[in-house]
């Protein structure tokens, strides 16, 4: 590429050189086209007009990559699927999901369309897994310093007390839920008790016992206003 061409290009960008011949030259010269593109990005950068996300022209590279990629061949039969025991509910669900008939000869009878559906399903589930994984990975962590993030700093607790409004962003094995609910209830009710007893202070003694319910005197449990 000659200095003249670069200068002309620069002039063209500034709107000076407007002749048709040079336009043709650009059209035929890939290097010049790239330069044209780059110059515009540089100019925008200098003017601080760059978009927040720089949209580099990747179309060529992607096209190349696509061409060089080996064609995906779909597995003709999915023997793993057909081998699954029909009794297992998961496998039958999976079959249904993949568009496979529950019968064992389903694999042979499957039409190409059905196969395709199955593959789409797999592709979709992979995509979902990727998204989920991404979300998981990007969840805010509890160790954030105080006030660093105005957003919720930790994930929600699963399960929840019945009277509790709950923010839930994650699943936990079912068996924990009941136990957890009990524990949370315990914390909440104990907190109420403790706060109430906060000022149950003996004279000249600043430490009080927190033995909760059982130490109460139970004598005389009549309501005082039942006169």
């Amino acid at each position, binding site marked *: 590429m000659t200095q003249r061409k670069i200068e002309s290009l620069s002039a063209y960008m500034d709107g000076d050189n407007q002749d048709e011949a040079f336009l043709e030259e650009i059209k035929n010269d890939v290097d010049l086209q790239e330069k044209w593109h780059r110059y515009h990005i540089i100019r925008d950068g200098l003017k601080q007009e760059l978009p927040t996300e720089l949209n580099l022209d990747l179309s060529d590279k992607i096209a190349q990559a696509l061409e060089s990629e080996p064609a995906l061949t779909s597995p003709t039969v999915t023997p793993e699927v057909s081998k699954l025991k029909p009794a297992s509910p998961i496998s039958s669900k999976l079959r249904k999901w993949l568009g496979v008939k529950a019968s064992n000869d389903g694999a042979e009878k499957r039409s190409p369309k059905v196969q395709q559906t199955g593959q789409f399903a797999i592709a979709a589930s992979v995509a979902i897994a990727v998204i989920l994984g991404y979300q998981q990975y990007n969840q805010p962590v509890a160790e954030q310093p105080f006030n660093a993030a105005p957003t919720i700093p930790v994930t929600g607790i699963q399960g929840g007390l019945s009277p509790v409004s709950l923010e839930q962003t994650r699943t936990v094995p079912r068996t924990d839920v009941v136990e957890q609910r009990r524990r949370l209830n*315990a914390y909440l009710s104990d907190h109420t008790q403790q706060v109430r007893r906060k000022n149950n202070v003996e004279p000249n003694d600043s430490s009080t016992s927190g033995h909760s319910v059982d130490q109460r005197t139970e004598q005389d449990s009549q309501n005082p*206003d039942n006169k």
Partner: protein
Amino acid sequence: MRDSLRTLNYRISFVVSQDGAQAEPYLWRHGLVSGIEMEHLSLLNGPGREAFRVGGKVSYFEPATPPYSIRSHFINGPIPSQFFIDPEQLGHAYDIVLVGKSRVSGLAAQQIRIISKDNSRYSFVAWLDQQTALLLKLDMLDLEGKLLEQMQVTSLHLSDEADEYFHKIEQDKLPDITMVGANEIVRHQWSINWLPAGMRVVKRDVHRLPVTGHAVDYVLLSDGMVDVSVYVHPIQGAGAEKGWLRHESTTLLSLNNGNVEVAVVGKIPPETANAIATSIRPNTRQRSR
């Protein structure tokens, strides 16, 4: 205001509403009967909850638990009465700003704002009656200024004589004060290394949770306006849980810190609860604060 709370004979109806909960109507009576302060707070909906105070003794009558009395100079109800009785204490934790005047419950009211000094707790807006300085309305706002809890007086009745209701209380029949032994000073194997400004440890002990029976190390924190409970116990099994939820306006946060599980409960923003919980460290040597 403290004097008003202590010396006037009044009968106040108020309603407490919380985010995501039913509004709760209360009746609150106070009177001086032959020099002794008497106070009665009653929840009017449902099975009800009653609390009586005679001098320095408060008796609670609640469904599901036997009645009991404790030694206290105020009823622990929906109003942070300690604040209004002991406002000086609040200066460590909150800035109090006079805002302006407005009309609340049909009365001329002075509005004040109570903002935590380090912005780590919910803020409050209170409206006090200009004549008696009794509380007419109290809002609790989260850090974004969203209303979390509101107490609103619907009627305020002052009288020269104490309500005759108080004469009906048979003091002999109130349950005796629960004697709490002066137990030994508890030393925990861990300490809290960060507290919001003005918050201090009120008590610490080891006790069992009422429902599960788990023994926990316990610390009660208070800044005069809100109370915060901190529970610490060793992680049991795979019950590793991490997270928080809001029960009405109370935040419950639980996380694993080293080899202990920490739970923080109180009317504080989850960020603050998180900061308290993560600041807990095992004691290196005998230091216990």
